[in-house]
């Protein structure tokens, strides 16, 4: 069966249909795209038993033999869980867009770009070929540029410009790394390459590792390479912010795990590269603190969430620095999943608030809980999850991260300080989340208007469905933990 190929190409093949239908009715086009992503999702879900039993699932097709590339589609537990949450998020944001974008123009183009973006978002997770990976990596970039620019707020094209230049510059470093791997090994498959890289001089590999990691860190918005993120996230339309923050920056984390750590670092002899992990944990801690402090200081509703994303990418980078401790990595990947769902939901609710009130400064809000009860509930689920309050999703993954960190600190004293600092950072995370929720929904109302109410039906459906998903992730994370643990425990 060509399950993965179909799952990947369905959005591509549906682009003309979506564009054509969109000319007649944008709503039908959106529902069609949501349906397509759910079909792709169910195709991926059918692979869960195979992956749990055999550890991985691979399909390979003819592509560019002269460049050592086959069209290899591959899933293991990690990539499958990330691809699943991506498709759920795509479906939710598309449904959400129906009402959210209805006043905007050129909607057929919007949905066509969304489905092009879907290929990139899913593709980065489900391939083991570096060239194909890079294709999808850049496919995440180009449609995003046009969506942010064309349908965003205020100076949206300026923000999109910044986003494009930063992440494209990062991507070219990734390309350099890919080229180096091809020159060193003659193959672009990450698993074949890893075996051959073990025979390569570690000094050369240090450069390759640096090139890859810098490139991925830009996408992940690790301080000090984060400058593009607050602008891009806050100017993008809410569905795009949700995907940006949920999936696109998470893909940076995934790529560091799979390529920097999994392929290059693990091929280096153990004595050489421990500093690399310390560097990762340093920047992880730095990003976590920087993001939470700025989120505490900011009053723009979307910028708060944007800075919170920087902070959470810090958590994930810290978790990845625990490589190869299984609990830490499991926690990191699980946090990618949970953060994607929770942060996506938080952006959607923030977008709903902005859509209904027309205001984006939280000092002017307050008391919205009584006027927009559904949005308030969804927002509470998302915010409490981001704040790490049990039993919501992110608590579970943060718990795993800290279990891993304490284990690591037990065997390597250098991890002691970062672990303590990271625990302190969680306090700030909780603080800005509570401040956000208090200022927006609970504090005495400042907007003297009676016409504020819950948004339209499709926005509600999207938010409630995603909130339900976040709650399920928190109460019953078993399936994802099983999937991820099957890979990390090896």
């Amino acid at each position, binding site marked *: 069966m060509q399950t993965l190929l179909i799952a990947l190409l369905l959005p591509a093949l549906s682009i003309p249909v979506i564009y054509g239908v969109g000319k007649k009715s944008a709503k039908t086009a959106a529902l069609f795209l949501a349906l397509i992503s759910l079909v792709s999702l169910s195709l991926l879900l059918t692979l869960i038993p195979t992956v749990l039993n055999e550890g991985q699932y691979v399909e390979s097709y003819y592509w560019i033999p002269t460049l050592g590339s086959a069209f290899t589609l591959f899933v293991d537990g990690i990539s499958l869980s990330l691809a699943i949450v991506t498709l759920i998020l795509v479906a939710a944001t598309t449904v959400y867009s129906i009402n959210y974008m209805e006043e905007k123009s050129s909607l057929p183009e919007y949905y066509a770009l969304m489905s092009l973006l879907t290929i990139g978002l899913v593709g980065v997770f489900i391939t083991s070929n570096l060239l194909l990976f890079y294709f999808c990596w850049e496919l995440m970039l180009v449609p995003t540029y046009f969506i942010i620019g064309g349908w965003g707020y205020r100076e949206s094209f300026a923000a999109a*410009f910044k986003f494009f230049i930063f992440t494209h510059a990062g991507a070219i470093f990734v*390309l350099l790394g890919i080229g180096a791997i091809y020159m060193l090994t003659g193959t672009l498959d990450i698993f074949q390459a890893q075996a051959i890289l073990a025979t390569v001089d570690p000094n050369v590999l240090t450069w390759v590792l640096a090139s890859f990691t810098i490139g991925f860190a830009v996408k992940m918005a690790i301080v000090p390479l984060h400058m593009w993120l607050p602008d891009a996230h806050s100017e993008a339309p809410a569905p795009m912010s949700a995907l940006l923050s949920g999936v696109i920056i998470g893909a940076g984390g995934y790529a560091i795990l799979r390529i920097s750590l999994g392929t290059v670092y693990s091929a280096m002899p153990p004595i050489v590269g421990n500093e690399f992990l310390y560097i990762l944990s340093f920047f992880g801690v730095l990003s976590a603190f920087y993001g939470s402090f700025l989120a505490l200081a900011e009053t723009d509703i979307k910028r708060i969430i944007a800075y919170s994303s920087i902070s959470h990418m810090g958590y994930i980078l810290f978790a990845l620095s625990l490589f190869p401790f299984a609990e830490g990595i499991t926690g990191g990947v699980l946090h990618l999943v949970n953060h994607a769902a929770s942060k996506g939901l938080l952006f959607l609710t923030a977008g709903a608030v902005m859509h209904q009130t027309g205001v984006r400064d939280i000092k002017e809000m307050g008391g919205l809980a009584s006027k927009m009860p559904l949005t308030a509930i969804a927002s509470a689920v998302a915010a409490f999850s981001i704040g790490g309050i049990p039993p919501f999703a992110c608590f579970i993954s943060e718990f795993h991260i800290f279990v891993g960190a304490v284990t690591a600190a037990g065997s390597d004293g250098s991890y002691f300080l970062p672990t303590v600092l990271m625990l302190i950072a969680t306090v700030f995370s909780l603080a800005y989340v509570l401040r956000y929720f208090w200022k927006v929904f609970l504090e005495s109302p400042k907007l003297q208007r009676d016409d504020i109410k819950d948004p339209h039906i499709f926005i509600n459906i999207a938010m409630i469905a995603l909130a339900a998903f976040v709650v399920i992730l928190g109460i019953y994370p078993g399936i994802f933990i099983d999937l991820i643990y099957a890979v990390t425990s090896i």
Partner: protein
Amino acid sequence: MNVIGVLLPTIVFTVCSILTVPLLRLVRKSKLDPQRFMVAWILLSFSVAAFSVFRLATEYFGQSQSVLQISSADTILAPLSTVFLVDTVSVYMVIAYLVVGSISCLYGVLHVNPKESLSERYYALLLIVTGTVIAATFSGDLLTLFIFWEATTVGSCFLVAYKKSRESLEAALKYLIMVIIASGFIIYGLSLVYGLTGSLNFWVVKQVLLTTGNTHLLLVAFAFIVAGYAIETAIVPFHMWLPDAYTAAPASASAFLSALVDQGSYYILLRVLLFILTPPAVVDWRFTIAIFSALTMTVGNLFALAQQNVKRMVSYVCIADIGYNLIAITSLTSIGLNGNLFFFFVAAMETALAFMVIGIFNKMGLENLEDLSGMGRKMPLTSLAFVCAALSFSGVPLFAGFIAKYMVFTSVLQSSVAWLALVGVCNSVLQSAYLLRVIHYLFAKAPKNDVVIEEPKKLLVPIYLLVIIIIILGIFPALALDLLSTASISLIL
């Protein structure tokens, strides 16, 4: 296979070119639509030429030798002692010329307003220049190469001067002077080479260079020849003529020149450098070329960044492309040379595409970045084509430019000049920045007025043909790369 077989495409183009003038005059007098006639005429001449190339290619691939030397020794042309060279590379290049050349010639016909009269001389020039570029590509000795290449450049000078405006005449004069200096260099070098070796045949000259102990004088001679071709290729610091010439020429001529003449001149440089002066066997020029490569990329991109005139910006992109090509030449690996050859084809399509789109804007009087404000909303299809060209230039996947850049950057990583990859990468970022600025003007800025503009449907046909080829080659580069996989070996011999 004989000389006539190799020269057949050139002969076809020459005959068609000569016939263009009287036929078009006849058509004007009759009731036929001259534009339709020209489209048919160009398609006819290109398909006859394509057929003769196809015959040549089947004959070449039907035998076992990787390089065919076809000399005029047994024919009536014996006194000329002309040698032609047919190998995968030259056949591939000729196919690329035919594809891009036919599309840009079609654009040239459609670009003219129906009310204006079509100029027969212009199309005659386009056709004959295509013929000479093809002959130069097949040539196997330095003199034949020189003659056909000079014919090409002279033809190009007329194309540049075609508008007869002040600036186009100035640009053409500048071009002509540079070309004359270049041919002076080349002729001087050729006379030295002939005096020392008694031959101008590629293989003989190379053999002498490899076996003679004292090659100093020969190397001086080659320094002249390479410098001459470097001027014609517009390597920095010999690049001054190119932006002027391409900006002043009519849009279809810029597209045509950047696609055929520009890529043809890289190809010749590649032949002379790699085939005759193979490093390190004959002389090691890798470091020198690396310096020129870094300089050409950086200067090209920095100047492009500073341009307000979009056409001039794309001319500087052509210069930057030369820099990227030189990166691959220095690597001397098979992936680099394949990348180089792939890059020729892709760069020809990209630059032609960009010039064609700009031609549409120029026709409406829009020349500067400011003028393009908001055109993305008024003419979405035309602007989208430019976006494709820009993304391909900046090396974004799905477009063929990405594969070309990837191969070029990868190739140099293992060579002695690996730092060049870093220079290339920084340049690539710079390039995407200024190209994105054009997209920014097209889509982000508010339109200056509310005039509704209809998109030129006919002109979009050749433009979208190129877009489709670029995307197909971007997703399935194996279509071209499989043909090239053996080519790089034959290039070094």
